[in-house]
């Protein structure tokens, strides 16, 4: 059997399905529902078996057209940085507030992607987010929590 990444993904999916199935069997149902033709665990159990079946088939059957990915040409560094920036953005958005975190997220993303036109970078972050925030908060009446703007008295 030729081991390639697709097979490894299928194996991981097989293990995931087995874990899902195990968890499905652990779902607590009401005592009167235990022997009912359908309860909260029935559908997940079917899904677990379906996952095992399809990933098992994918593991066993020969691969008609193997996908080859040239890892040397992949840009892992920039992708990783963007993901980290997005995680930091997610972690600070509630504590710091929508305006500042979103603007900094955009500004730093432009920077790490190689942009150096500072004025344009600024315009497409701080004023852009302010305008977007006005559309959501001011016009569409969608509340956006912003401790930073509240602390400087811009938002009530």
């Amino acid at each position, binding site marked *: 059997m030729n081991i390639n990444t697709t097979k490894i993904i299928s194996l991981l999916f097989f293990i995931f399905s087995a874990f899902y199935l195990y968890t499905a069997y652990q779902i607590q149902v009401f005592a009167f529902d235990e022997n009912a033709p359908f309860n909260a665990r029935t559908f997940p159990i079917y899904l677990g078996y*379906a996952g095992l079946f399809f990933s098992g088939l994918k593991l066993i059957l020969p691969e008609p057209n193997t996908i080859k990915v040239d890892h040397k040409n992949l*840009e892992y560094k920039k992708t990783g940085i963007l993901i980290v920036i997005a995680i930091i953005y997610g972690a600070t958005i509630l504590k710091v507030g929508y305006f500042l975190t979103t603007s900094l997220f955009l500004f730093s993303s432009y920077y790490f992607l190689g942009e150096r036109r500072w004025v344009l970078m600024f315009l497409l972050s701080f004023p852009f987010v302010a305008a977007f925030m006005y559309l959501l908060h001011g016009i569409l009446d969608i509340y956006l929590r912003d401790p930073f703007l509240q602390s400087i008295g811009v938002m009530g």
Partner: protein
Amino acid sequence: MIEGILIGLTTALTLQNILMVMVGCFFGTIIGMLPGLGPMTAIALMIPITYGFDPATGLILMAGVYYGAVFGGSTSSILLNAPGVPGTVATSFDGYPMAQQGKAGKALAIAAWSSFAGGTLSAIYLLFMAPSLSKVSLSFRSPDYFALMILGLTAIAAFSSKGQFLKAMMMVVLGLMLASVGQDSLSDITRFTFDNMNLTDGISFVLVVMATFAMSEALTIILKRNDPTSAAKQVSLTELGSIKINKEERSKMYKTIPRSSIIGFLIGVLPGAGATIASFLAYGMERNVVNDEEKEKFGKGSVNGLSAPETANNAACSGSFVPMLTLGIPGSGTTAVMLGALLGFGVQPGPRLYMTNPEIFWSIIMSMYIGMVILLILNLPLIPYIARILAVPKNYLIPLILFFSVTGIYVMSFNNFDIYLMIGIAVVATFLRLYDFPMPPLILAFVLGGLMEENLRRSLLLSNGSWEFLWDRTLTLCILLTTILIVAWHFYKSIIRK
């Protein structure tokens, strides 16, 4: 009926109501373009405003918002691969690749004309068949719905090219697994939450679609060093925004639109089915009926592949008004919100609505057509300007896509957990996409998961745990046989190819 149509026309063509349709279409388009804010949000935002009007005017405004939001959703699907609503997911399969080839204006124009034609044809179907179709929609029972879901998921065969069937099926199962997270709809027992309160309500659709489409697309572009704006750079802004559709493309649309509108309308009529299944089925059917040469173009910017789901989702929007107006059963989440508004106006929908309140029933039907015309008039001139989004350099476009994705989730839940979950799903999806695991089957399965479990539950409980319900009713059996035929046809074609 003629009298009813005249009443409807008289009501719909008043200056105030035409203005309402225009305002509705305009705001709907803008709101629909913002990820996370679909037609349901758009209509919900309009409800307080509509209470100031009479019921017909209020509903006309909401219908305008509905169509506008669906069209707006198509725009973000085509330009950014960020479908904000389930009904426009299938639009991105060929709309986005077409836009990547520097034909963004053309893709938007095809979507606009197809939506218009789909909406117009379904308004005609609605005009003549609404009362009798309500009886047909009532004849659908849980086993039929369950079989229909299986058929819908089998349409994934349409997305899986050579050797992709098992990968697509794995994605279907993964989508259903994601949909099973959260409280069980009947017993309220929590499943797969691992004591995390944030998962109690399940994973939101917008989160999954943003993660697997918009965010993972942005990450894939960076990872593969692609430039989504490269094609746009090679053509002039005039060419990028050009809405000209040539004779060959028009002739393809002439064939696609009628059949997709019928599928869309019929699926839309079924309560709970809606625009998503309609668009996926229309896409799958279109791929199966075109010749081999055209079939190869699917997923790479096919005119048929773009026109079919766009026609079907708009036809389904009109179709979903049938169960709402004639039975009082909303055909989709959006029409459920509209039903609430209708009840708020003191209007009781049901089989006698078009006798007790003919001005409401017929004016909505007539305003649908007028709404379609206005939507087209409003949007066609704007397309060349909207298409210029693709001329924005990659270094700005990618962060903006990420920004819209995160904001879309943030305004829905206001918690960090959903953002982390979205990033996690996006990373996994990016990796899976590298190895050609298709995402559309995952999305369709995720959308259908809850409905599928619900209908299987009812069927099994009614048949006391026996699976005989699958062949007890002729309708269920016919749908299942169609499913088997589609799978068999797929395998037959694969063997022939080899």
